[in-house]
C-alpha cells in the first residue's frame, strides 16, 4: 500500500536519512555529514530565524556516480511543546545541479528535491519519519524512513548521551527496497554521532552533526 502511495505521488530520486535538528537557534550554524546505504552527503546550514534554515548541500549518489550540489531551505512548520517532550514538523526543498563523476559522463543538469520530516522525542524515546522526492535529472525516485530510538539513561546537559535506534527505510527503486538499520547515537554538547549498519545491503551507516 505504502509503495503505491509513494508511486502515486510521482516519486523522484532521493537519499538521506532523518536529519536531526534541521533548524537551529537564531544565529546558529550546523554542519551535517551522513552516509547511508544509498548516498553520502555534506550539508551546512545557517538559521536566520528560529523557523528557518538555509544552507548548502553536496550529495553523492554512489551507485550512479552522480553528485548533487545546491542549496537547501528548511522550514519548521510546527513545533509542539510539552514539559517533557517536543514534536516537530518540517518541510524542506533544495535546488541545484547534478552531474556525473568518475565513470558517469553525464553533464550537469538542473536538479531538486522536496520533502517533509516529523519527529517527537522525550529524553528517553525518539520517533521520526521523513520522506523525500527528488529529480536529479534521471527520472524519479523517492524514499522514506522511519526511526525509533530509546535512551538507556537520562544524562544532563554536557553529559554523554547514548541512544539505541532502529531505522526502517524504503527506496522503491533499489534492489532491496526496504531495509532495517540498527544504529547507536552518541550525543554530547554540540556534537552528535551515529554509527550503524544495514545488513541487507552490507553497507555501514554514519552521520555526525556539529552545531556552532
Amino acid at each position, binding site marked *: 500500500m505504502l509503495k503505491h502511495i509513494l508511486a502515486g505521488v510521482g516519486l523522484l530520486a532521493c537519499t538521506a536519512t532523518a536529519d536531526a535538528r534541521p533548524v537551529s537557534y*537564531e544565529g546558529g550554524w550546523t554542519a551535517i555529514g551522513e*552516509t547511508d546505504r544509498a548516498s553520502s552527503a555534506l550539508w551546512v546550514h545557517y538559521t536566520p530565524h528560529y523557523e528557518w534554515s538555509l544552507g548548502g548541500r553536496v550529495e553523492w549518489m554512489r551507485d550512479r556516480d552522480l553528485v548533487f550540489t545546491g542549496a537547501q531551505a528548511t522550514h519548521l512548520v510546527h513545533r509542539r*511543546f510539552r514539559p517533557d517532550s*517536543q514534536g516537530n514538523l518540517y518541510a524542506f526543498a533544495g535546488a541545484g545541479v547534478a552531474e556525473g563523476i568518475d565513470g558517469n559522463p553525464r553533464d550537469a543538469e538542473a536538479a531538486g528535491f522536496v520533502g517533509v520530516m516529523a519527529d517527537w522525542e522525550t*529524553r528517553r524515546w525518539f520517533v521520526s519519519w521523513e520522506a523525500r522526492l527528488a529529480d536529479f535529472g534521471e527520472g524519479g525516485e523517492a524514499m522514506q524512513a522511519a526511526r525509533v530510538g530509546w535512551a538507556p539513561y537520562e544524562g544532563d*546537559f554536557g553529559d554523554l548521551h547514548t541512544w539505541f535506534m532502529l531505522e526502517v527505510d524504503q527506496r522503491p527503486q533499489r534492489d532491496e527496497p526496504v531495509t532495517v538499520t540498527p544504529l547507536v547515537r*552518541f*550525543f554530547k*554538547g554540540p*556534537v552528535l554521532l551515529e554509527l550503524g549498519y544495514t545488513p541487507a545491503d552490507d553497507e555501514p551507516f554514519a552521520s555526525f552533526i556539529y552545531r556552532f
Partner: protein
Amino acid sequence: MTRILAAASAAFLFTLSPALADDHGEHAHDDHAHGEHDMQPADMALNEDISAALAAGGSLVTAEVNGMVCDFCAMAMTRTFGRRDEVAAIHVDLDTKVLQLVIREGESMTDEVIRDLVTRSGYETTAIRRGMAD
C-alpha cells in the same frame, strides 16, 4: 568510500573532544549540575558559576521552559543568552526544565526579553521567577 566517511566521522568527533569538554555556552562560566529528576526548581541547588555571579552582586532569574529534551536544546539557550552583555551566568537543567540566569548588578532584563530570547532559541517559556526561591 562509505567506510572512509565513517572513519572520518569518528575522527571528526575525536578532534572535537576539547570542545566537548567546554562547550556549554559562550560564557566560560556556564555549567551544569545533576539535579534529582523530581526536584522542583525552588529546591534546586545553585551551581558554582551561578553562585559566584550572585556573590558578585547579580540577580537571579529562573525561567521554566517547555520542550528542552536534549543538549542541542540546552546549548541553544546558553548560546542565545550568552550573547547578552547583561547576563553574567547561565545554567540549564534538563531534569527540571529550568533555565537560570544571573543578571549583572546594575543591569536588567525584562520578562518580555527573556521570553523573546527563549522563543528565538526555539523553545517556549511557561513561567519566570525572580530572586531566590523561598
